[in-house]
């Protein structure tokens, strides 16, 4: 059994989805996350068992609305989607062929997607334009993650486009930047997966456009509007992250032989591993907590608690950490500030600043 599988132990692996893969790229320096994801560990279940359930959750209203919007975009033979693709990609009128990959049944979807994409890439006569419910694969540290983009569009001239349908609104040409950024990161995962599929099939991977078609409701109506979003930057970050993931061996080597994050699920699937023991095991890996983790990682509360116990400056955000460059803990920084601690080599400048800052604060608050 390979070491990563041993880390997961008897707990069934948790497949990655695009959102999880995109989040991997959000905190590249975190070895804990890299290991857990690499081993396919269910971080959500782990966090619950540790008593630090993740603070996320999606409202049923948001889910319903998202589904309804996607249905609207795809209704009537993707009539709305075709209108938008004709607008943003200048798709010729003749290109309307629709393939629902899901027609073949779940177990064949990936194979069928490959066959259809291969046929389109060979530019055979009856290649399609819209591939609905495709299933792509992406290798993550030795495991294949299956990914479901909303739609893949193929265009005369040989270009493939990922279509991402999101239900956040674009109002007077503007959308929530955080939502757009998240959509772009997620779409980049699909672009990468499709490019790798093309490469495996012997085609030019760059035939997958780095512009993804983002479809959102416009203003306050349900009417969909499409925008091209360039995801080159997100792709670059993602590829770098995934290449680091393949270097997990190095991270694993530093770990004790017997270390495992197994939840030891009982017959009912509930974890039987003592939580304290699991927490100790996790603490053998180095996390890199940042407040951004609070919106991207299931383990965030566990790691934040750990950072609190260590009094780490990371707790206060990247800005504070950058400002304190090279001073890791609050205790250390405060010691330098009140002069009770001598600066280590390279800390002279920050120590001088901290001392002045401390003097100024005392003076003003006296």
């Amino acid at each position, binding site marked *: 059994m390979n070491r990563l599988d041993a880390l997961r132990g008897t707990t069934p692996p948790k497949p990655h989805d695009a959102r999880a893969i995109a989040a991997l790229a959000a905190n590249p320096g975190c070895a804990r996350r890299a290991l857990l994801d690499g081993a396919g560990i269910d971080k959500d279940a782990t966090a619950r068992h540790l008593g630090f359930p993740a603070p996320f959750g999606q409202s049923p209203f948001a889910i319903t609305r998202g589904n309804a919007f996607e249905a609207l975009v795809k209704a009537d033979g993707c009539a709305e989607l075709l209108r938008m693709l004709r607008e943003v990609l200048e798709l010729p009128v003749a290109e309307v062929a629709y393939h629902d990959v899901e027609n073949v049944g779940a177990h064949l979807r990936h194979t069928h997607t490959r066959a259809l994409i291969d046929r389109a890439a060979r530019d055979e006569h009856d290649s399609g334009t819209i591939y609905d419910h495709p299933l792509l694969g992406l290798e993550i540290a030795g495991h294949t993650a299956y990914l479901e983009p909303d739609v893949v569009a193929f265009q005369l001239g040989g270009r493939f486009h990922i279509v991402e349908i999101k239900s956040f609104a674009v109002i007077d040409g503007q959308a929530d930047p955080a939502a757009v950024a998240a959509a772009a990161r997620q779409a980049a995962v699909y672009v990468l997966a499709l490019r790798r599929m093309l490469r495996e099939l012997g085609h030019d991977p760059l035939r997958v456009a780095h512009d993804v078609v983002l479809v959102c409701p416009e203003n306050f109506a349900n009417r969909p509007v499409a925008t091209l979003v360039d995801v080159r930057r997100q792709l670059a970050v993602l590829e770098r992250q995934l290449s680091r993931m393949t270097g997990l061996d190095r991270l694993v080597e530093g770990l004790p032989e017997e270390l495992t994050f197994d939840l030891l699920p009982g017959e009912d699937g509930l974890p039987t591993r003592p939580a304290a023991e699991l927490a100790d095991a996790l603490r053998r890996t180095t996390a890199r907590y940042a407040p951004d983790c609070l919106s991207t990682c299931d383990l965030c509360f566990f790691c934040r608690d750990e950072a609190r116990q260590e009094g780490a400056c990371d707790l*206060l955000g990247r800005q504070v950490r950058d400002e304190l460059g090279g001073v890791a803990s609050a205790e250390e920084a405060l010691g330098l500030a009140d002069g009770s601690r001598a600066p280590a080599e390279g800390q002279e400048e920050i120590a001088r600043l901290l001392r002045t800052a401390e003097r100024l604060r005392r003076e003003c608050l006296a």
Partner: protein
Amino acid sequence: MSLLTSLARLRALEEGIAQPIATVRHCHLAERPMVLIPLRMSGEAAAPLAALLGTRRDDPRLLVVTQPRNRDLRFAWAADLAAELLPYIGSFLAGTETVERKNSDPYERVLDAPQILVPNQAGIAFIRLLGRSTRFRRAHGPYPVPPTVPLLGRWLTYFGERATHPGSSLMTAVTEELGRHWASGQSGLEDANLAALTAWITTGPSDDAEDPLVWPPAGPATDPGFDAEVLAPAIEAGAAERITEALRGQLEPTWRLMWQAVDLLRELPEGASVEQRWEQDRGSFSAMAQHIAEGAPPQARRDGAVAAASRLARMERAQAAYEVQRAYDDPLVMAEYRLTGEAFAGEVVETEPEHSEGEGRSRKLRPLVVVKTDDPVRLAPGTALGTPQRRAQGAQLVEARDGLVTVKITKGMGRGKTPAPGSVPEVGERVCYTSLTDDFQGSPALPEAEATPWTHGGPPREYAPSDEDALEEWS
């Protein structure tokens, strides 16, 4: 964020309680603020779910859309909101003063203006969207709405836009204001949680603050668990009273926090420049009221090129003025500039009040002051300086060496042969000088809107709301 604030955050973390980063209050706080906590339907751009609002802490008014997917109920809700907010806004229009202006006609300015307090930035963004989704509606024709709804939309749009104006207090997010005055031991991201931030300031960090069962989110987003377990079944059952009571339960804890935050801010003495900025707010509010009274159309969907450029320039000037004023008003803010060497403070060790430069008719009084300081001064000789102790005074740095800084006073000491009494600091006095000054370059020369160059789209057409605007769906 400055190193000074970072240090305060570290201290807060160490001591388990937030640390002050201001010694005075930098925002206006109305006698009768309108506290407004809006909630949005999850998954929708701007569909209102509820609001709790009022000017008295013991008398909140709850407005609920008991069937959030029903468009007519949304407009009825907006009309209810208008019935609360418009009279409040209108109550400030009666008392005015006439303000004389250089090179321009005098105008009427209200003596006091409304102030809307919302919990957080997301709340302000939601108010702006509510304004956007209601201001183009019409009281006549297809899909008529109550006439107060488009009017409310224009005011909400106005308040939402004004909230982005640095230093304005017409509508502010309480978490932002608290965060400007206290440093907590958590990240800025977590400070957006009103319950968590208030806990840091009053009693110390509390895990309860992040438990939606104890402290429901301060909106506009609701807790997904609440949506799933309480709201969805109640909507499914069509139980209007149950929905109303459940939402009241979600909003009331935040209501208490909002007033607690008001109390915290009120305890701080008001900064010296707050009144001046509030005066600008009153002027801006008066202009908006005038605009509406004259029957001008609702705000356009987007600014034209010239309007956008001048708005940007205005914001930049306001931002610069706000930063300087806060430093002059508050030694703890000034300390940030002392840390970076743009300001210094210390004791006057020597003066030469009758020092002068030039001969004969061009002879000018230029008193010299030597200040002993421990601050790292990084100012070149000749730099123009100002001082919070004597705001009308102008000075220049002559020399800075070995903790002794020589300053030459150039303005604000009178026209006589000897300086006006009190205009030159005495030996032993503590003073502060800074290169930050409050005189700003005038506004950039932008063309009139009618002369917008073609590169910027040419003169914008007068914005006329279309039928489409009025009929737009609202989800």
